[in-house]
């Protein structure tokens, strides 16, 4: 969809000739003439203006009554006055009226000092009220949710929070109850407002009616400093502003960047900052001593880690999504050059061969985030934006609601976006290849009936700008077909169209570009072949690899096949880990644990899924004994005899730029606070071209057995997995988010639940059915097999109407009873 064209017009405001964009609201256009118009309810992020507060009244020549400038688009030749007596009288009156019931308890109000109502009352009010009547009173403060406190006396009924809930997040929970002077903000029946984006209303509220509970009374605006940063808790990489007081992060605010987050944050990003300053966080280096991890000096920990040198050639490394490009780059260099071990991976699920990876990352094929909003058609393939990259969920909703984007969803698991989609297609988990092959055939063949043909028709005829948002969960063998479909739709080289991959790690894309993939060096250069994550697990379990390096990842928790990883970590002689939380795999198996930095401390760069390089800057100093990740890597590197000559983080960046041809010439200054999309730069041509193998590639090292197409015959259910938005160790240790901690919810279709006699909310037990798969071979395999037989996952049944019959969905990435304990494609669900 072409973006709306912007035409300049000229209008007069307060006697000044000003140029502005046609159709812009007067309140915005006035800024071009240095005129400030006060407003409360106007917020362009929320969509169309509602004109609820009347604060923005102005006089327009030719219109007898005063007009709300927030909802009046500017026209050529308009003559506007904001300084006449009529306007002043109206502004005074509106302020006086808003304060009729306002308690003015600024000294105890958390908004005090950054309150638009204070500022506007001071700037545009009369300074004196004629009301002597008693004010309206409510009980206060009340909890609107575990995260948000509401003070109804302070609410000025501007509709912002309600509009957010109704039109942006579309959770439809917040409403105005009662009418007239009795109106108040509430949820239906007063249920807590629990939603993944609820924290945004705190920032939207122009008064202190909605305040953050974790930030409650923590600081005043003059006590704090703002530090720009990036949230690296998920691949959305929202731009944030850390509020810092006394070297402590007190809250996280959105730092609006249209190209990335549109000014919103999810509650994970907004509240999980608490994990930076809790006791559960690892504060000092730990070394295993007599079976127990004990705090030791850095010197001791580094010397233990330097023992990696004795495992030269037999080290495997896994890098988690929170690592920066620099850390990834240093680690791959340490592995490949320092330890002569090419076994390094950052893709946990399927490994993608070099050529295919290049083809998928081709700059001409990359869609940008705003394209989701302006495309004709968006196809969400095999991912759940709400869980995998929450902010993209809001972006897609915006596109559908405001720009009429055709949304199609093809996934195994029902999606939160189904209600907005023109078409929602389900396929059995793991059968993306078959599904895409059918879609490719439908795109090529003559029109026929059926869901897939309807999808093909939508993609072909809905308009030429098509964006395919796909997730890392899409099986590797489906990717060549995906490329063929992109080619068929002509997505390559088309501005506003393309593919957008949501990796499972926050900086998944950057790590791949930095060479953290087996057989792929920095800048997608060929590198000596190495093992993928699954192969590392198998090799470590049977002793071919003797040491493991876990950089901010815990495979026991994060990756498929928990039993195999446990066996691998158990057998490995030396496990070096960087972590901020002692998750199970680290606690049980690591020999050395280096305290990892949080995203508020890191210095470095990350790459957004759409290719935008963004910069992390230290908002606070390192607490306790934490040291920078790059410096630890550089130190270990030097100790194993491979001095990388890195003394600062920018030096690592310079080495990275030198190694990655398509970053050439980029400086940290240029990246700045807004980021730079490298696929838009001329140097993107340096990206080596890839090619899709014509025959579907064999599933590269993925441990899962062949997916089952039809409903399993033996009464079992196909196993699908999903990662809930809250499934992260940072969330678990954040006190404010304790209420979100994920337990296993086994999603079942109503038919299966009825057949199995399971009710919603009942406890269930999931066990493996098919024991004959050949995933395990060799001596270590049979060891792991023994464990596997008795595997039982306990959870609560969640009967969900959209779940296709014959499939059960289990959460993975959670601390207990995670789906990654199950390795078979078919499971049995029953009451324990």
């Amino acid at each position, binding site marked *: 969809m072409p973006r709306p064209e912007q035409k300049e017009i000229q209008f007069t405001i307060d006697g000044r000739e000003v140029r502005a964009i046609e159709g812009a609201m007067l309140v915005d256009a006035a800024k071009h003439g240095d005129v400030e118009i006060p407003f409360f309810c106007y917020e362009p992020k929320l969509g169309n203006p509602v004109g609820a507060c009347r604060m923005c009244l102005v006089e327009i020549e030719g219109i007898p009554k005063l007009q709300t400038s927030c909802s009046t688009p500017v026209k050529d030749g308009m003559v506007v006055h904001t300084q006449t007596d009529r306007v002043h009288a109206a502004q005074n009156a509106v302020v006086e009226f808003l304060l009729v019931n306002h308690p003015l308890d*600024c000294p105890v109000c958390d908004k005090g*000092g950054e309150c638009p109502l204070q500022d506007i009352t001071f700037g545009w009010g009369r300074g004196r009220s004629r009301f002597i009547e008693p004010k309206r009173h409510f009980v206060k403060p009340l909890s609107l949710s575990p995260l948000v406190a509401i003070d109804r006396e302070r609410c000025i009924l501007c509709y912002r929070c309600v509009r957010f809930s109704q039109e942006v997040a579309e959770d439809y929970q917040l409403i105005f109850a009662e009418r007239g002077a009795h109106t108040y903000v509430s949820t239906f029946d007063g249920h807590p407002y629990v939603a993944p984006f609820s924290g945004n209303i705190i920032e939207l509220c122009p008064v202190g009616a909605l305040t953050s509970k974790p930030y409650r*009374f923590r600081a005043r605006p003059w*006590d704090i400093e703002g530090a720009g940063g990036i949230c690296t808790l998920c691949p959305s990489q929202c731009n944030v502003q850390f509020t810092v007081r006394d070297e402590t992060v007190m809250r996280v605010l959105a730092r609006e960047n249209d190209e990335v987050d549109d000014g919103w944050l999810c509650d994970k990003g907004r509240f999980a900052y608490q994990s930076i300053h809790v006791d559960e966080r690892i504060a000092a280096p730990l070394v295993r001593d007599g079976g127990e991890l004990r705090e030791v000096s850095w010197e001791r920990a580094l010397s233990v880690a330097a023992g990696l040198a004795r495992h030269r050639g037999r080290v495997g490394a896994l890098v988690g999504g929170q690592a920066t490009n620099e850390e990834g780059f240093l680690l791959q260099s340490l592995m490949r050059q320092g330890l002569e071990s090419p076994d390094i991976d950052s893709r946990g699920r399927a490994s993608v061969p070099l050529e295919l990876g290049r083809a998928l990352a081709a700059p001409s094929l990359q869609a940008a985030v705003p394209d989701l909003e302006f495309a004709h058609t968006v196809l969400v393939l095999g991912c759940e934006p709400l869980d995998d990259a929450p902010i993209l969920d809001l972006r897609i909703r915006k596109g559908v609601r405001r720009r009429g984007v055709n949304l199609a969803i093809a996934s195994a698991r029902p999606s939160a976006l189904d209600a907005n989609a023109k078409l929602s297609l389900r396929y059995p988990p793991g059968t993306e290849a078959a599904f895409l092959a059918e879609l490719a055939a439908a795109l090529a063949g003559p029109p026929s009936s059926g869901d897939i043909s309807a999808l093909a028709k939508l993609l072909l005829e809905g308009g030429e700008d098509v964006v395919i948002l796909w997730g890392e969960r899409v099986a590797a063998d489906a990717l060549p077909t995906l490329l063929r479909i992109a080619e068929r739709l002509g997505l390559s080289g088309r501005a506003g169209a393309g593919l957008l991959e949501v990796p499972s790690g926050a900086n998944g894309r950057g790590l791949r570009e930095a060479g953290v993939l087996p057989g792929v060096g920095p800048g997608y250069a060929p590198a000596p072949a190495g093992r993928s994550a699954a192969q590392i697990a198998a090799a470590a379990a049977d002793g071919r690899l003797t040491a493991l390096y876990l950089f901010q990842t815990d495979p026991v928790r994060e990756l498929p096949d928990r039993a195999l990883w446990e066996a691998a970590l158990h057998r490995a002689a030396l496990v070096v880990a960087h972590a901020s939380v002692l998750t199970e795999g680290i606690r049980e198996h690591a020999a050395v644990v280096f305290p990892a930095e949080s995203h508020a401390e890191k210095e470095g760069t990350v790459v957004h899924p759409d290719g935008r390089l963004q910069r992390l800057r230290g908002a606070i100093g390192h607490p306790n004994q934490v040291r920078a990740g790059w410096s630890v890597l550089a130190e270990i590197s030097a100790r194993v005899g491979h001095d990388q000559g890195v003394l600062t983080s920018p030096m690592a960046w310079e080495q990275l730029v030198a190694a990655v041809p398509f970053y050439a010439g980029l400086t940290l200054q240029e990246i700045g606070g807004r980021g730079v999309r490298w696929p838009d730069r001329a140097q993107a041509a340096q990206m080596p071209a890839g090619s899709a193998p014509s025959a579907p590639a064999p599933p590269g090292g993925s441990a899962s057995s062949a997916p089952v197409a039809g409903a399993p015959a033996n009464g079992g259910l196909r196993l699908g997995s999903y990662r809930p938005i809250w499934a992260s160790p940072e969330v678990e240790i954040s006190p404010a988010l304790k209420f979100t901690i994920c337990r296993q919810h086994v999603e079942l279709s109503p038919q299966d639940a009825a057949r199995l006699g399971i009710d919603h909310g009942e406890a269930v037990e999931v066990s493996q059915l098919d024991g004959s798969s050949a995933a395990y071979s060799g001596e270590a395999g049979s060891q792991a097999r023994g464990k596997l037989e008795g595997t039982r996952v306990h959870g609560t049944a969640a009967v969900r109407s959209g779940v296709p019959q014959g499939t059960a969905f289990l959460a993975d990435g959670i601390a207990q009873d995670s789906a990654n304990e199950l390795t078979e494609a078919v499971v049995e669900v029953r009451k324990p």
Partner: protein
Amino acid sequence: MSYNPGEDVIEVVRGPAPGAAAGAYRAFGETLRGLKTTFARIVEGPTTIQYPEEKTPVYPRFRGRHKLHRFEDTGLEKCVGCSLCAAACPADCIRVVAAENTPVNRVSAGERYAAVYEINLSRCIFCGYCEVACPFDAITMGHDYEMSDYTRSDLIFTKEMLLAEPIERTPLRSEGE
């Protein structure tokens, strides 16, 4: 070439040589005039204040060491921890960290109270802005001006020190004095 001083020539102007009468007046006249004042004051008695045994009384509006106040009836602290004093302070010497009152731990009358309230008196310039800024008259400037100490850190007054009834060491000037 001879040196030409140009315009830099300085002319020294001398006064006329003093005569005998004028010299005598200069030697004694002015001295006697000064002594007249001295002898006139002698009869008034000494006015030196023997500090520290004796102290200068201060005016009622004298701005000395701060005091924090409680409500007399309930005993709750007046300060709600709003930090306005900290915002007003030009020397940036007040630090407030607020916290929330709970039914079991009610410290102030409002929703919040000052969990930490510190004034660094070695930086304070006694301007009194904090007193003016406070919406609850919780902080006022007292009369105490004896605040010397041996270490700087002892001059950071905590909430407890500011709330405690100070030992009144400073006499107040009576009305009209």
